[in-house]
């Protein structure tokens, strides 16, 4: 899977690259508008992660170019501008998702993952992790080919974990993923523990292994 990262801040570009490559993606980089246009014209990408404010041009124009080329690449906008117009015009141009800076790398990775799954297999694929099989189309989860019933949040958690497998995922990232911007209304992250406990219990009951590891109280690691 090839991902193009269009981001003018070198440090952030490197962080994204490092995280996504660890999850098995091949990353290419573009630091400005010109480089981005050259890259999308030269190569095919499965996913493009694009900043809006770029030197020499605008990220939205890169999206236009991609659409002009009839690219099948999934597009995620990452922007510091949390402006509604930007968000809407980006999505109207054909971007698949919009992420406001700063974001959790695990969240970006999960979204890249979801878009690639949707784009490449039209959702008709299964996600496999050892004895766990997930069918996103029907939102069913099988452990050792035995179906288990998960709540909406538990299902989201599992997908997030598998997308970020072997990585430490912080509680705030999990809370942000499950509750969006509103998670800080909650007052604490304690309730995440309840969901994880239930998910772990259901998978263990179905004969699965315990993949969710608590990491020094900082967060969780799956697998």
């Amino acid at each position, binding site marked *: 899977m090839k991902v193009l990262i269009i981001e003018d*801040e070198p*440090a*952030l570009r490197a*962080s*994204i690259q*490092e*995280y996504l490559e*660890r999850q098995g993606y091949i990353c290419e980089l573009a630091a400005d508008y010109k480089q981005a246009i050259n890259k999308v014209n030269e190569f095919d990408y499965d996913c493009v992660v694009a900043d809006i*404010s770029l030197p020499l041009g605008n990220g939205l124009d890169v999206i236009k170019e991609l659409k002009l080329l009839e690219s099948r690449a999934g597009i995620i906008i990452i922007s*510091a*501008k*949390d*402006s*509604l117009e930007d968000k809407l015009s980006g999505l109207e141009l054909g971007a698949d998702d919009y992420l*406001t*800076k*700063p*974001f*959790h*790398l*695990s969240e970006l990775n999960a979204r890249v993952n979801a878009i690639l799954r949707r784009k490449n297999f039209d959702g008709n694929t299964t996600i496999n992790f050892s004895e766990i099989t997930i069918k996103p189309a029907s939102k069913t989860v099988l452990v050792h080919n035995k179906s288990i019933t998960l709540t909406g*949040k538990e299902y989201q958690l599992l997908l997030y974990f598998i997308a970020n497998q072997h*990585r*430490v995922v*912080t509680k*705030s*990232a999990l809370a942000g993923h499950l*509750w*969006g911007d*509103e998670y*800080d*209304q*909650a*007052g*604490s992250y*304690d*309730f995440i523990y*309840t*969901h994880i406990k239930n998910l772990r219990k259901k998978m263990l009951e179905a004969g699965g292994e315990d993949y969710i590891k608590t*990491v*020094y*109280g*900082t*967060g969780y690691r799956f697998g």
Partner: protein
Amino acid sequence: MKLLTKTTLYFLLIMLPVFAAGAFYLYTKFNKEIKYETDEELVNDKLQWMRYLDTASVNNPVFRISTPEFNLQPTEKAAQSKHKLKGVNIYQEPENTYAPFRQLSQVITLHNNNYELVLRKSLIEKDDLIKNVVFVMLAAFAGLFLFVLLINWLISKSVWKPFYHSLEKIQRLQLNKMEATVFDHTVTHEFNQLNAALNSMTTRIHNDYTNIKELTEDAAHEMQTPLAIAQSKLELLLQDDTLSEAQLQSILISYDELQRLSKLNHNLLLLAKIENQQYPVTEQPDLCAVIEKYLSLFEELIREKDLIIHKEMTDSAPWPLHPALTDIMVSNLLGNAIKYNYQNGRIDIRVNASTFSISNTSELPEIPADMLFQRFKKQNTSYTNSNGLGLAIVKKIADSYRLQLHYNFENGEHTITVITAFSH
């Protein structure tokens, strides 16, 4: 009071003494004229009478005549060479009133006898005169009044038209649509000046507005980018297995604090954006649906505290508010109601087309109303996951979109009520 009403009123108030003075002048003038005419008649009568009496008194009779109009009595007084004229009031038996008369008196000599001659003429017309003058004046005043009203109405329809036109435009002025507003040229010099001033003002305001808007967005960009870099580096660092637990803890705390900072920045920018009216009212999202959405989003939190939710909601409640702001308002209020609630507490939600109120039980005492909606006024320091901006944002939304916001504390329940000004 309308400008026209005011000028009309002033005009009429000024006209009132003018008319009164006119009436007084006319009255005295006519009065004088009548007196003069009557006196002339009296003198004429006197001459006639003298001539008659002169011939009638040849045989030297003694006259003694007394009528209201003509009086001739013998007198011892010395003869007078000139008559005296004056006004008198004489009792009228039938009407039981005094009536005004002009009176001519003179002591005359008829064949060596002195007589006092008194001639009188009624001035009863004088009463009518006042009546007539007052009537004419009132009629003229009423006529003028109607005339002024009519003229003012016509003037307001034509001359003031551009003014009202401009006024209407100003009232409908929206910050983000300001550049489209142009105050047209008129035929009146003053209105042209006004419209020119308004045009330059709206242009200036629009430019300022755009500048501020750009500044806010630039500020967001400039601050969020370094935050994003730092956060991403810390997140990568967290993946390092070789770090000790204490080191990971330190990284995690920095990571969480960075998020708090970015959330704070985000909320401050949001406040500025709301203040700049950057969320125009283009649709009417259903408040009930938004509340249901957040109730299900916060489901776990509600269940964790075993809160009882009591809802009194209409089927739908379309509120004239930007969808993003509706979300923020509901999530902030509902979030607070959950966060500051105690175990097994309760939340009451009442919604209709014009009112949204949310009550919750809490261990917090009554909050002074002036503190409640202020920025960074945290009610309880034990709730660390609060930036003290939630209610300030709700307040800003209310202020910017003409909603009323009330806080009430009763029987241990905190109630916040939002009322839309466009109630049906």
